[in-house]
């Protein structure tokens, strides 16, 4: 049906750096948003009344209390395991994309290494999840 998809679309770049032009639009979009939004803050700063007489105003907000202690100390170490796992499994997930986007052009046996790979990863994941569940040691 949509056979156009199943034939390998050639890679367009002939010259070094030719592809980069495509990506510049994303950067341009980013830049455009910055250029469009930064003035909003500036204009807001110009339009808004400002009273800086009271130093209390610039204290961190803490429910109507004068704040005590450091603002940046608390950490949910209980869930640190998850963030460690994320770093590793993020890599794995994108590795799978390298394989997933080619699978149409590969023989079937080529799936075996991936399955072995996944098996190893699953084992690690099971261990990590069992570890991260134990709230007492974090």
């Amino acid at each position, binding site marked *: 049906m949509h056979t156009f998809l199943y034939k390998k679309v050639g890679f367009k770049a002939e010259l070094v750096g030719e592809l980069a032009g495509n990506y510049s639009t994303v950067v341009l979009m980013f830049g455009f948003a910055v250029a469009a939004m930064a003035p909003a803050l500036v204009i807001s700063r110009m339009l808004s009344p400002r009273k800086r007489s009271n130093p209390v105003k610039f204290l961190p907000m803490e*429910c*109507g*209390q004068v704040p005590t202690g450091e603002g940046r100390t*608390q*950490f*949910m170490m*209980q869930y640190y395991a998850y963030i460690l796992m994320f770093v590793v499994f993020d890599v794995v997930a994108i590795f799978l994309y390298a394989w997933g986007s080619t699978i149409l052009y590969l023989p079937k046996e080529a799936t075996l290494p991936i399955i072995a790979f996944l098996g190893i990863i699953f084992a690690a994941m099971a261990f990590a999840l069992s570890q991260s569940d134990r*709230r007492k040691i*974090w």
Partner: protein
Amino acid sequence: MSTPTLPPGLAIQKADERIMTLNVGPQHPGSGHMRIIVQIDGDYIVACDPDPGYVHRGEEKMAEYRNYVLNIPHLERPVIHDSCNILYPYVLGVEELLGLEVSERAKYVRVIASELNRCVYTMYWLAIYGIFLGHSTMFMWPAGDRELLIDLLEKMTGARVTHSYFIPGGIRNDLPANFEDVCLRQVNYFEKRIKEYADIFYDNPILISRTEKTGILTRENAIRLGTTGSVLRASGIDYDVRKKEPYDVYDELDFQTNVLKSGDSYARSKIPWLDMMESCRIIRDALQKMPKSGSVRVKLKPNPKGAIGSVYKRVESGRGALGCYIVSDKKAEPYRVKLSVPSFRNLIALPHLLIGEKLGNMPSVYWSLNYWPVEADR
């Protein structure tokens, strides 16, 4: 410990780096009118110190300066949306002290008003419970449906929430004409509405997963801490003052009490909801059994003087047993009025339930205690 320690909030915590002290309240969407000082280690609460008193208005002191009737308006202010119930023990006590006999019709009207008020209170509580769980619809629906009953109470008493309706010797005015029909219709619709909360709230899997097995108050602890009302009944103890020590005409009415065993936040939040349906039954029953006419109020002397002695009266309010202890010394003003309010009694459970919980459970556990800060502070 010979001297009292520093008041909460001024004491500086010297602790391990992992511990962070959070002031939850008074300007906090999840605190109501109080402050809870929690110390958290990561996501877990390791210490909790409730700091009420932001609405402490000295009602008990003020009551010593006013006579028995003029005490009514300010004594109902601690729980304005349950004002009939908070006034009830006081009125009963004053009636005993003054030796007044209340007519049958007035008793029924009182029961109807107090049941309506219980629903109004519970709906507001439920609304706030909804918003504490991040469920904005569950704020809006109860807050809206509660207006049906407020409308009834308004027709009855002339004020939306602060009714000042009960008075020693009866009630202040008779029911308006045609009230029974309107009441029946709106209460029936109300009951239909609250049954719909099951789908979106009480059977909602996210809610269940969030509140079940959190903040468990065991049966033993519930007794030991002297909790009351829905908190107690959620822990499996069948104790309802309306049943155990019926006042006015509750012994003639047909209703049950709801008891759940698990004692977690979910059970605590479900009991008031079940109670509301029971209240609807009571109202219908009372409307039927009520004498259709008759006097509703005993004429009082100006500045009545009570007999020497003391009384302690209890009623079941929307939050639990509400006691009133009045000491009289044969003057027009009471010598001492002490309100033993359920919120204050339930507050003691808060540190017990919160320690070891996750921070995310704080609002649900806190509000499931059926706690109204203004009442606790008096």
